[in-house]
């Protein structure tokens, strides 16, 4: 494996019964990259991601994440990655601080470290006033920013974001992408799925999945050239309509 690649997948496949959700995808993600994982609903993005983060066993193929094999070293992968799911997955009935403490705790962070991280996170997001409020009472945009920060709590090498900006307003989306850039700047690799094609433009490289296969993979600029269109939306439409 190229030491610059933090994710490397080869012929990765997942079959449910007689339905092939992910059909032999091959790609790699470089260290520090923002990698956009695009595709229509049901194209297999989430399934592919679940194999990479070690909660779904591939049917065949091979993949390494952060240097560990997804078949045999899933638990080692988990130490090195952060994950933010499509569904909001913090505890609504715990406060912002309690959520941070809990997730920091189960990642094995020390008490002191949790304290420092909590303060950092609350200052960064300007959450002073709501730090002791139940997460359930906060607006969606805030929740998602907190989710993202919690996913970065244990300073993972790679962070996986599954449609992180679904259902939030353009301003919050913008702020969210600023957070992503900051994390990438600090050396974290970002693997992000999205529906929004304007967001695809922010990625270093994107792959586009159609019916379980990766149909295109390159920088947004080159993809636009290749398909002779002037935005990612048109690239996507050309591919998805086949």
């Amino acid at each position, binding site marked *: 494996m190229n030491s610059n690649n933090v994710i490397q997948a080869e012929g990765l496949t997942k079959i449910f019964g007689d339905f092939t959700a992910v059909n032999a995808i091959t790609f790699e993600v470089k260290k520090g990259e923002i990698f956009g994982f695009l595709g229509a609903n049901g194209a297999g993005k989430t399934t592919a991601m679940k194999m990479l*983060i*070690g*909660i*779904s*066993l591939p049917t065949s193929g091979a993949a390494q994440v952060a240097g560990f094999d997804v078949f045999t070293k*899933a*638990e*080692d992968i*988990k*130490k090195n*990655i952060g*994950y933010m*799911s499509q*569904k*909001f*997955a*913090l*505890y*609504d*009935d*715990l406060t912002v601080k*309690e959520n941070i*403490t*809990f*997730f920091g*705790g*189960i*990642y*094995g962070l020390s008490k002191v470290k949790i304290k420092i991280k909590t303060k950092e996170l609350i200052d960064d997001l300007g959450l002073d006033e709501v730090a002791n409020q139940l997460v359930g009472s906060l607006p969606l945009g805030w929740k998602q920013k907190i989710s993202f920060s919690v996913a970065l709590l244990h300073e993972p090498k790679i962070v996986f974001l599954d449609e992180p900006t679904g259902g939030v307003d353009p301003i919050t989306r913008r702020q969210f992408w600023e957070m992503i850039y900051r994390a990438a700047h600090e050396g974290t690799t970002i693997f992000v799925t999205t529906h929004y094609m304007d967001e695809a433009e922010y990625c270093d490289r994107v792959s586009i999945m159609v019916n379980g296969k990766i149909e295109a993979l390159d920088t947004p600029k080159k993809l636009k050239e290749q398909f002779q269109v002037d935005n990612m939306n048109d690239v996507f439409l050309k591919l998805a309509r086949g």
Partner: protein
Amino acid sequence: MKIIFYIIQKEFKQIFRNKGMLPIIFVLPLLQLVILSNAATFEVKNIKFAYIDNDQSTSSRALIEKFEASTYFNVQTSFPSEVLASSAMLKGEVDVVIDIPLYFERDLQKDKKVNLGITINAIDGAAAGVENVYITQIIRSFSKQIKMDLKQKSDSQIQPVNIETIPLFWYNETLNYKTFMVPGILVLLVTMITLFLSGMNIVREKEIGTLEQINVTPIKKSQFIIGKLFPFWIIGMGLLTIGLILARLIFNVPMLGNLVLMYAYTSVYILVILGMGLFISNFTDTQQQAMFIAWFFTVIFILMSGLFTPIESMPEWAQILTEFNPIKYFVEVMRMVMLKGSGFIDILPQFIKTLIYAVIMNILAVWRYRKTT
């Protein structure tokens, strides 16, 4: 260890923050204990009694008076004919009809055999059985009296030797059904609450999506499960404590055995139930499914536990099935320790079986729990 602590801390916060769940966990079960213990009785009282007196004699009236004097019977009416009595029973107006034949007194005096017709509404078979015993007792004492009266008249009669049994009721001298029921109902409450809470708790995290978030952390299965189940173990022990205090204060149930023994047994027993709850939550995707499966098992376990119906009177195949019923062992141990003052050696068989059950159940549950699917 530290990681387990974080989970336990979080669980307790969530439990005590949930204003809807707290009363369900602590108030409802105790209400149930008070209500069920008072209501679930095997005694049959206020039996609606009617008679058809074809004889209209002193003897027949004396017999009816005997029933009137009993506290169990509520003498209703006399019916002129069997047809009317039957239709009254059909309507549920009477439970028992006694049919006194013509020449009842004359035949008694002649010392001939007399047949009394007794009809009992046996829709509830158990109640009918109890009623039958009461009636037999009353009639027997009546016939003894008559015989004595007759004896004075004719000494020539050869009296059969009367054999009388005088029962001694051990461990519950006054046959107080509450003494019998309270330990059993306490078992039910501890079981139901811990099974439902543990069964639904992990499924709930599945539903809201937080379980997936947990599964992408490097946490070990055993850490997560111990952290998850420990709070419910504590709650189970807490319920037992409150229940025992109520049993003592309200129902005055004797506590002959060693409390430490009771707690030791319960601590193992709750592990069985928690393992079961976890096992259920592995197989279900929603709290609703988990609830139904938990219900299915509790109903079977309760009805086959010997709590309401004695296991000895079940068919043989059912008796074999009860060997797999954890509630049965708990009910036995509770009653033995509380009422008989049994020691560790006495409950050893139950203790060992429960321990094996706990080990198997938890191994199965942990094995079935998958971080990766």
